[in-house]
């Protein structure tokens, strides 16, 4: 298989979960898309020649760094904007077809899932950044402890600690819903 095709398959397999991770970290769809695109570009540009097994932790390492960088910039921008007069943006025109969900499991199931997704995403978004990273990489992306440590740039012990604390915090806040 050519490198191009292997990369296409790899990126295609991770892009939705990567977007979800970025979206929960940045709480903004456009920023999340930018973070995922930048990470894809960087992976292809710098690490295409690496082994296929290395791509996943490398990709998530790049994405985690990008998310952190954007969070920092946003904090700085927020401080500056706090000094400026408030601006009211024009409402964006929505496209009902583009924004339609990809599939519909039925009204009752859908309502239950909607509530679960809303509650979980709110709780995950409120976790401290490192706990959030550990939880999403382990739970959503399915990386093992070693891969998560490489992606987060920390020790395996730290990953276990962050993950354990994230689970404990989520279980406390989601006890009634889950």
């Amino acid at each position, binding site marked *: 298989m050519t490198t*191009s095709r292997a990369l296409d398959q790899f990126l295609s397999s991770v892009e*939705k979960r990567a977007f979800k991770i970025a979206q929960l970290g940045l709480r903004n769809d456009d920023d999340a*898309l930018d973070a995922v695109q930048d990470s894809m570009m960087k992976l292809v*540009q710098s690490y295409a020649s690496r082994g296929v097994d290395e791509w996943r932790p490398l990709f998530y390492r790049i994405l985690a760094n990008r998310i952190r960088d954007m969070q920092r910039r946003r904090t700085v921008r927020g401080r500056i904007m706090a000094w400026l007069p408030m601006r009211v943006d024009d409402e964006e025109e929505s496209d009902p077809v583009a924004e339609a969900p990809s599939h519909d499991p039925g009204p009752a199931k859908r309502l239950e899932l909607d509530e*679960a997704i809303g509650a979980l995403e709110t709780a995950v978004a409120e976790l401290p950044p490192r706990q959030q990273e550990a939880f999403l990489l382990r739970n959503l992306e399915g990386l093992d402890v070693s891969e998560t440590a490489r992606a987060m740039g920390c020790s395996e012990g730290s990953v276990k600690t962050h993950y354990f604390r994230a689970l404990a915090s989520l279980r406390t806040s989601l006890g009634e819903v889950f």
Partner: protein
Amino acid sequence: MTEDFEKRTREVLEESAGRLDGRTRSRLTQARHAALAQLAQPARHWWRAYVPAGAAAAVAVLAVVIWSGGPMGTSPGPAANPVEDLELLADSEAQDFVDDGEDLEFYEWAAGETES
């Protein structure tokens, strides 16, 4: 208990990731294609990044040389020329002339006579 909770959260997150709207899925596909398009471009050698900066520096040096040595440039006086200063300091005969001092009054008188 913990495994059930982890399994449940994983299912919910997977469901959420699978529900992305058409616009987001389309933009993710575009992002992937843009990233892969880099592979089709010829390899960029590291030194090429320095070519524009090197060319700009060369032009700047050339401009300084032409400007300072060309006919339009302002001509500094002899005392301002560092090369001449160096030659004067290195000229042992001139140094002896100053150090000697014996005929200094004669030379001052001779210079005064010449001016008048």
